[in-house]
């Protein structure tokens, strides 16, 4: 089966570290892989108006996000010699300290995996129709804004 497919993208709630560990373990049978690169986005307890962010609630235009992710996937596979690539993004509530984005690229040699992983993360931040609502204090919230760093 081709690795370029409309695969599962969204996970409800935080992405569990056990799921991430299992994903790594599943690749031990693919012995042509020589390098993995992993990016994990974690919900940070930013201070807003003197109060700590306790959770982010993610929402998406899911049909568009799936189409866009498919487009990103095809362009990344066209540009880098990857063995495989997996991307998971949270929907719904993720508490501070929880993992909300998991990007996992694998290749024969390190450079392709590392560069592809960075590019996918940047493109997700810019192009994927996902919105984060940051909750702080007593039921207050503000809409998250992505930065370039």
């Amino acid at each position, binding site marked *: 089966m081709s690795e370029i497919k409309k695969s599962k993208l969204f996970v409800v709630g935080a992405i569990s570290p056990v799921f991430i560990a299992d994903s790594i373990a599943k690749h031990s049978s693919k012995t042509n892989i020589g390098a993995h690169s992993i990016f994990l986005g974690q919900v940070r307890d930013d201070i807003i108006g003197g109060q700590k962010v306790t959770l982010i609630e993610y929402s998406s235009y899911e049909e568009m996000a799936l189409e866009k992710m498919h487009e990103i996937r095809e362009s990344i596979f066209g540009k880098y010699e990857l063995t495989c690539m997996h991307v998971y993004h949270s929907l719904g509530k993720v508490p501070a300290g929880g993992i909300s984005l998991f990007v996992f690229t694998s290749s024969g040699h390190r450079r392709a995996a590392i560069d592809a992983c960075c590019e996918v993360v940047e493109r997700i931040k810019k192009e994927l129709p996902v919105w984060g609502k940051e909750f702080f204090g007593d039921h207050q919230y503000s*809409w998250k804004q992505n930065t370039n760093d």
Partner: protein
Amino acid sequence: MINVLFFGMIKDMTGNSGIEINGVSDTNELIHQLNSMFPKLTESVYVVAVNRDVIQGNTQLRQDAEVALLPPFSGG
């Protein structure tokens, strides 16, 4: 019937996840009508997607189009 979808802070502002609009033939006419229904929309930052593709400039709309107003993305 054009299906209009709102997301993120625009969904908050309109108090709706979407509405159906009749009698507009392009995105300029649609935005004009939405602005009169939701005056705060004129102060909002967003891009427009027609059938899940972000458009640049005025775009003709088929009567079964799905139009989405997308505020700045903040995933990850």
